[in-house]
């Protein structure tokens, strides 16, 4: 069991309340995974300031001010750098491209794990009670366009911050997973042969790498998920986000739960209805369970794509 809750806010008037709404949703999925949790928050001006790239680090051995000083020394003169710690997560913002920032971090901190990257998303994750983590992250004060949270009950790999979801292996592309893949070792080997590198033995990372690999090759999010359904075997409900899109897919057997609610102002997905029960306007929302094997994608221009696997 794991819990997923994701929210895309179409109505700009609600975006100041993203974190508050997500906190209420998180409360509804806490029981499904108490060992660790994580979230991806898109568009908060404090976490991901405009004009900077953002990298999430785990296993950082330096204090934030030490790391900030080291980065200022290593990056081009005049680069603005901010480093903050949220529990086990170290969040770095810098006014350079994310690839440059990531390369610089890798050189300064070869043992650190890069758990998030991009310009629009802040990934925060750690071990412990999900609501304690939410307090560490200041979730209730966050604003933005979209967010994704996951509470984990570990099965396929260790209970560590790096094993917590979301997995963010390409800029601004985040994946959370409820379930387990049975052929992830085979696909990992195949992707390694294609030159893809991995951080962990986690099965969900393989799905994130696969989607990133397909999208780097030109596939849309929907198409990448459609292809995932033909390659991956196992149980899964997945939610994958980009800065403008949110996609949900369940495996064709549909053992893992998912429920979607949609209004003109927002679309939300959660493992259980109780995570949606307190959203504004839920009483008039269109509420349904996503059908097995169908990719549902919503983009912030309010269009929805439907693809049958």
């Amino acid at each position, binding site marked *: 069991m794991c819990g997923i809750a994701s929210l895309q806010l179409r109505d700009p008037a609600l975006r100041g309340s993203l974190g508050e709404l997500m906190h209420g949703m998180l409360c*509804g999925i806490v029981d499904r995974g108490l060992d660790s949790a994580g979230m991806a928050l898109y568009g908060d001006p404090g976490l991901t300031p405009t004009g900077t790239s953002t990298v999430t680090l785990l296993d950082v051995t330096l204090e934030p001010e030490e790391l900030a000083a080291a980065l200022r020394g290593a990056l081009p003169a005049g680069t603005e750098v901010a480093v903050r710690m949220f529990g086990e997560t170290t969040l770095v913002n810098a006014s350079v491209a994310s690839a440059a920032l990531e390369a610089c971090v890798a050189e300064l901190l070869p043992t650190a794990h890069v758990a998030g990257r991009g310009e629009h998303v802040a990934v925060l994750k750690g071990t412990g009670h999900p609501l304690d983590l939410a307090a560490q992250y200041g979730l209730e004060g966050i604003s933005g366009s979209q967010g994704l949270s996951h509470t984990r009950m570990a099965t396929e790999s260790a209970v560590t911050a790096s094993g917590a979801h979301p997995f963010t292996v390409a800029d601004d592309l985040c994946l959370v997973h409820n379930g387990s893949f049975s052929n992830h070792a085979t696909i990992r080997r195949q992707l390694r042969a294609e030159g893809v590198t991995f951080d962990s033995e986690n099965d969900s990372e393989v799905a994130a790498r696969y989607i990133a690999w397909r999208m780097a090759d030109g596939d849309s999010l929907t198409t990448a998920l459609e292809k995932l359904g033909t390659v991956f075997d196992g149980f899964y409900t997945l939610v994958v986000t980009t800065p403008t899109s949110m996609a949900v897919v369940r495996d064709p*057997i*549909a053992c893992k*739960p998912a*429920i979607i609610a949609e209004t003109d102002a927002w679309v939300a997905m959660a493992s*259980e*209805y*109780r*995570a*949606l*029960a*307190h959203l504004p306007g839920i009483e008039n929302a269109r*509420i*349904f*369970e996503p059908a*097995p094997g169908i990719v549902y994608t919503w983009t912030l221009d309010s269009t929805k794509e439907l693809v049958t696997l």
Partner: protein
Amino acid sequence: MTILSATLAPTQTVDLAASTVRELNAALHQAADATSWVVDNPAGAHNIAVGIDRELEVTVNGHVGYYFAGMHQRGKVTVHGSAGVGLAENIMSGTVHVTGDASQATGATGHGGLVIVDGNTGARCGISMKGVDIVVGGDIGHASAFMAQAGRLVVCGDAGEGLGDSIYEARIYVQGAVGSLGADCIEKPLRAEHLAELAELLLAAGRDDDPALFKRYGSARTLYHFAAANSHSY
């Protein structure tokens, strides 16, 4: 006399925004027969109205979570909303009615009683049913009535793939399309006694669908005995 005075007792209302599910269920387990209860603000909570064994009339206003009215016996429970996984799981008797949709495993392993879902259900509706009657106004998902042993499943809409896989003796009636039939499940003739029981079930569910428009499915009984032709598999 006792029953009359109980019937006249005012309805008791429980607000789940103020009370816990445990408090509600404990009260329902101790309630006098023929009393009626209204439950507000369920907010998708799990295990609401589980284990009732009284002649109660319970109305829930809003959506409920997992295992609503599990192990239900006697009385009638109505949800004005939708229900999560395992609605009326292992129901023994009485009636459970959901006006919206229900998730997967509706009426799973139910031994008796009647489960009514006015909308659709997810996968595995009536899985391993052992005598319960289930009437669904809309569609049901895949792998429904898997290993169904006894009881009747009525579907006014469509059924998903693998309907009635490895079915024993339950009877399935579907008005719409069937995605596919599971192993050993076949279409069977709709005889007068089937039309009669179907009319009775539709009436009990408050529906006016025409029984003659349904098809009946059940066990081909080819899995009951070992087939000598398969001996080379062992």
